[in-house]
C-alpha cells in the first residue's frame, strides 16, 4: 500500500540524445481492407509523431482506425486483405514501409515493441511465461536457454511480480489478469525498445489494478526515456498519463492537442461531444449529453466530413467538402502550438 503524490510523477517530455526530429513519424498513412462487400477504408491519411520520452494518446471508438494504424507501424497487419496504398512511417527518419522484411524484423521487438489488450489470448497457454519472456533474448541476442531464463526472472522483478524466481516456470493461466498484463509489459520491455505501442493495455482490468499497471508503465517509461503510443477509448486514462492527444474518427485524425488544452477547450464537435457524454465521478447530472446516431460503416463513409450526420453544427459545406486538419489559433490569431482540428467550424467550436 503506497500513497502516491502525483505532482512528482507527471512525466515530462524529454528529447532523445542521439538524433534530431521525432522518434516516430507517421505521414499521410492510408490502410484499406479488400472485402467481399467492397473496400473498407480503415485509415484515411493519418499524421502523427512521437518524441522520445513522450506519451501520445490515440483516442477513438471502435472502428476509428486507431488499432489498425498501430498494426501498420508494427508491420503486423494481415496483408491481404489489408493494403497500404499510400503513406510513410518514419522511424528515426527511415521509412519502414520501404524496408526489407529482414530489416523490419530487426526493429520489431528491439526498437519498437507492442503491448496488446487481452493478455490471456496474447500469451501462449502451453508455454511457461519464463520461456516466452526468454524467447526475446534467445532470438534477438542468441543467449542460451539458461541465461535467457535468468534474464526473464530479472524482467519479472522489474515489473514487480512477487516471487519472480518461483513463478518463472508457471503458465499464463496461473496468473491473475493484472499479473498477466505485467508479463506483457515485461515482454515489451525485454530489449529496452525506444518506442512502445500500448493498445488498450488496461481495458480488461479492474480499476485498482488498472491504476497499478498505468503507474508501472509511466515509471518504466521515465526510466528508459521511451516514447509511448497509448491507444485507448477511455478519456479518464488519457487525462492521467498523456502529454498530447490525437482524436480519431472514421480513419482520420479530427483533432490534435496537448492534453490540458484538449480537455479545457476542444476544437472539434466530436471531441466536445465525447467529453460531455461521459458520466463523471465527481459530478452527478440528470441527463447525459449523447452524440446521436452511430459511428459510420467504413464501407460507406459519409461524403464530406465523416462526422456530419451526427454533428450538431453540420452545414452544407460539411456534407460536400472534407475538412483538412488545420492549425488552430487563438481568437487574435496567436499560435496554439501543437493544436490542429479538422472541422470547418473549429473557430466557433473552440471560441464560441
Amino acid at each position, binding site marked *: *500500500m*503506497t*500513497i*502516491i*503524490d*502525483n*505532482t512528482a510523477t*507527471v512525466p515530462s517530455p524529454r528529447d532523445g540524445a542521439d538524433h534530431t526530429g521525432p522518434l516516430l513519424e507517421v505521414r499521410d498513412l492510408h490502410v484499406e481492407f479488400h472485402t467481399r462487400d467492397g473496400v473498407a477504408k480503415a485509415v484515411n491519411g493519418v499524421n502523427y509523431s512521437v518524441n522520445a520520452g513522450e506519451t501520445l494518446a490515440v483516442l477513438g*471508438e*471502435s472502428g476509428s482506425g486507431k488499432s489498425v494504424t498501430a498494426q501498420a507501424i508494427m508491420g503486423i497487419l494481415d496483408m491481404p486483405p489489408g493494403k497500404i496504398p499510400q503513406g510513410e512511417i518514419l522511424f528515426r527518419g527511415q521509412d519502414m514501409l520501404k524496408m526489407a522484411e529482414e530489416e523490419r524484423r530487426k526493429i520489431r521487438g528491439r526498437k519498437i515493441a507492442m503491448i496488446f489488450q487481452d493478455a490471456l489470448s496474447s500469451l501462449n497457454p502451453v508455454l511457461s511465461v519464463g520461456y516466452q519472456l526468454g524467447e526475446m533474448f534467445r532470438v534477438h541476442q542468441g543467449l542460451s536457454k539458461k541465461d535467457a531464463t535468468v534474464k526473464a526472472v530479472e524482467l519479472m522483478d522489474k515489473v514487480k511480480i512477487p516471487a519472480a524466481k518461483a513463478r518463472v516456470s508457471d503458465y499464463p493461466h496461473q496468473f*491473475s*489478469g*493484472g*499479473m498477466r498484463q505485467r508479463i506483457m509489459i515485461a515482454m515489451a520491455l525485454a530489449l529496452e525498445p525506444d518506442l512502445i505501442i500500448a493498445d488498450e493495455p488496461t481495458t480488461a482490468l*479492474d*480499476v*485498482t*489494478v*488498472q*491504476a*497499478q499497471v*498505468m*503507474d508501472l508503465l509511466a515509471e518504466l517509461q521515465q526510466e528508459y526515456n521511451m516514447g509511448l503510443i497509448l491507444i485507448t*477509448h*477511455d*478519456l*479518464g*486514462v*488519457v*487525462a*492521467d498519463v*498523456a502529454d498530447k492527444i490525437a482524436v480519431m474518427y472514421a480513419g482520420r485524425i479530427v483533432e490534435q492537442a496537448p*492534453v*490540458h488544452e484538449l*480537455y*479545457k477547450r476542444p476544437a472539434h464537435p466530436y471531441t466536445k*461531444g*465525447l*467529453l460531455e*457524454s*461521459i*458520466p*463523471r*465521478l*465527481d*459530478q*452527478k*447530472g*440528470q*441527463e*447525459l*449529453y*449523447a*452524440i*446521436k446516431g*452511430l*459511428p459510420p460503416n467504413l464501407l460507406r463513409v459519409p461524403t464530406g466530413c465523416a462526422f456530419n450526420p451526427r454533428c450538431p453544427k453540420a452545414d452544407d459545406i460539411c456534407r460536400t467538402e472534407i475538412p483538412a486538419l488545420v492549425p488552430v489559433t487563438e481568437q487574435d490569431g496567436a499560435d496554439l502550438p501543437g493544436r490542429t482540428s479538422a472541422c470547418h467550424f473549429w473557430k466557433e467550436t473552440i471560441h464560441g
Partner: protein
Amino acid sequence: MADLSKNDEAVAAAVEAPVGRGEPILQVRNLKKHFPLTQGIVFKKQVGAVKAVDGVSFDLYQGETLGIVGESGCGKSTVAKLLMNLESATAGEVFYKGQDITKLSGRALKAVRRNIQMVFQDPYTSLNPRMTVGDIIGEPFDIHPEVAPKGDRRRKVQELLDVVGLNPEYINRYPHQFSGGQRQRIGIARGLALNPEIIICDEPVSALDVSVQAQVINLMGKLQDEFNLSYLFIAHDLSIGRHISDRVGVMYLGKMAEIGTDEQIYEHPTHPYTQALLSAVPVPDPEARAHRERIILTGDVPSPANPPSGCSFRTRCWKAQEKCSQETPLLAIPQRFDGLDTPAAHLSACHFAEEKQVVPVH
C-alpha cells in the same frame, strides 16, 4: 395438492398487489451462495467451497436505482443470478413483496419471475442469432401468455421497439444486422415486455462505445420514469454507478463493504476499500492529476475459495491491525458516527471507519 395450489394463488395475489413509491419492494437478507469444490471422479467429496456471495443484505425500494459496484470476482453478478432465481441460494432469503422467492416453486415462482426481469451485459451473446428481433422480444409472451393475447403480439412488439428508440419496421431483422448499442436496446425491450416492476441490469453498457453508452444510459433513465421501474444496476465503472444510482452498495469478496446514498458513498466514504476504489478511477480532467491523491492498493483480490480470516479486505488494507484478522466487521453505522447528523453516518463494514475525501470537489 389442492392445498398447494391454493397457496400458489395466495402468493400470486400478493405479488399482484402494488407497492407504494419509496417502500421496499425487494429485501435481501443474509444471502449466501457457496459453490462446492469437489475432488474425485466417482466418489466425489467436497473439499471446500467458493464463497461467491457470503452474507449480503440490502433493500431495494420501489422506483429507485440501487447500484452495486465492485471489482470482478466480488460476487455482484452472482447476486443478480440469485435474485432472478437462476441460481439457488445456499442460505438466506430474498423477499419480494414479503414473499421469500428462494423457497417458491411452480406457479408462484412463475408469477414472481414475470415481475423481475434482467438485462444482460453482452449484447452480442445474449441474443439468439437465429431468431428475429420480433421473436426475441416476443418470446416472453409465449411463457406468460396472459400479458399479450395471441393476435395482439406483433403490435405489442412493435410498440416495445418504438419505446426503446428502434424503428418498429425492424421487427423481422436478425441481431447481426444491428450495432452493439441497438442490440442492447433490443435486450432492454425484451426485459420490458412483461411490464416488470424490477429490472436487474448486469453491466448493461460496459460493452458499448463511449458515445453510445450515454444514449443507452439516458434511455434507461427515461424508461424508469415512464414505467415506474426499480433498477438494480450492477457496474464495475464507478462513474456510471454514480450517474445512474440513488443508492450505491460496494461489494468486496462476496460481502457488502459499504452501502449508502450516492452522496454518502462518493463524497463521504468511510470504508478504506471504497476510498481506494474511488481514488483509482481515472478522472477525465488533466488538471486534477496534479492535486489528486491516489491510493494504490497492492496485490490482487484474494481467492473467494480461501478468504482471509476476519475482515476480508485486511490483506490489502493499509489500516489493518490485529483486530481485523480476528473479528469480522459487521455492516453497521460506525460507532463514532452513530447518532450524528453527518453524511458519514451510513452502513460500513470496517473496524476503523473514518471519513476521507478522495473525489475532487468542484
